[in-house]
């Protein structure tokens, strides 16, 4: 078994790069989150509907997705719904949670998945197969959040 050097104080360049790389991974995962969410009503009136992300980049919404969402909701609900919807990936790998402030998200998810869903503590819990189905329908109107419980 090779013995570690007794007089080696500094980290090797390889180790330093590795540590930086790992720290970079932690920074990268949530840079795509929006600085602020926008209401569906406002986005429908924009020529190029988009939000600005934490890293300064823009996240564009597809108009047909917005129109599909609008077709599911009445005017009041369109004012309430804020986009993009956040999907939190928690400590449990098998499930994801949709963070929702209002009941309107519950309605959308339930319609999109064609099954009843319940909101608990401001979150709707769904499993991976359902998540795939939801993402298929709402590619640009949903974004992933890596849980602060893991990242912090």
């Amino acid at each position, binding site marked *: 078994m*090779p013995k*570690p050097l007794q007089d080696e104080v500094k980290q090797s360049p390889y180790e330093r790069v*590795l540590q930086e790389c790992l720290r970079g*991974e932690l920074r990268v*995962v949530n840079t795509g989150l929006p600085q602020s969410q926008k209401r569906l009503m406002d986005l429908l009136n924009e020529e190029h509907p988009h939000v600005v*992300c934490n890293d300064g980049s823009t*996240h564009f919404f597809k108009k047909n997705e917005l129109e599909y969402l609008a077709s599911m909701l009445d005017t009041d609900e369109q004012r309430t719904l804020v986009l993009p919807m956040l999907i939190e990936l928690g400590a449990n*790998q098998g499930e994801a949670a949709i963070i929702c402030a209002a009941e309107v998200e519950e309605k959308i998810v339930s319609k999109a998945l064609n099954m009843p869903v319940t909101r608990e503590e401001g979150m709707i819990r769904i499993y991976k197969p359902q998540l795939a189905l939801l993402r298929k329908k709402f590619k640009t109107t949903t974004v992933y959040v890596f849980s602060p419980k893991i990242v912090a």
Partner: protein
Amino acid sequence: MPELIKVRPTKIELVKLKRRLSLAQRVQKIVKDRLSILTMEFLQTAKDTVEAKRKLLDESSKLYKALSVAAGYHGYIAMEKELIASEADLKVIAGSRNMAGVRLPSFELIDNGKPMRGYNLVDTSSWLDRAAQLSEECLRAIVELAELQRNFELLAMEINRTKRITNALEYIVIPRLQATINYLKMKFEERDREEKARLKRVKVLVARG
């Protein structure tokens, strides 16, 4: 046996190594989550790409058939003359979206909102209308396929990169850190035992006078 990291065998180094291990384990958890999400999206994009490709091929074959019928009906020269007037600039909005840290392009073909296609409806037949309608659908399918194919490539590249990081963490970084921590722990225990033995010996010597 994993290789050991070159560190001084001190308690401070042990604490530092433990911190590094916890960071590496946290990163591994996130990277694994990210990899599973990327794989899920990649599979979905692959399915969509195949579907879009098939759709484009179908549309193209229908379009060529409709165009040949229209050309047969009007004649090439007359059809070209009519179609020159219908030329229009295409407007594609190119943006990007962020998906779990990957920037993916997003293209959208904009309708110019013109109800008429530009050619004379009196002098042309419904065959040409059909060909024009199919060509519009074909364009939409091309733009959709372009976006999907690029997403497919980018996701594949990101999956490769993430897999390398996961493997490095799982098979190199974490085992090395754990082995070094264990080595240091054993070293400290050995020192403690030596110290105890020395004290016992000194006690015996003192007792003898």
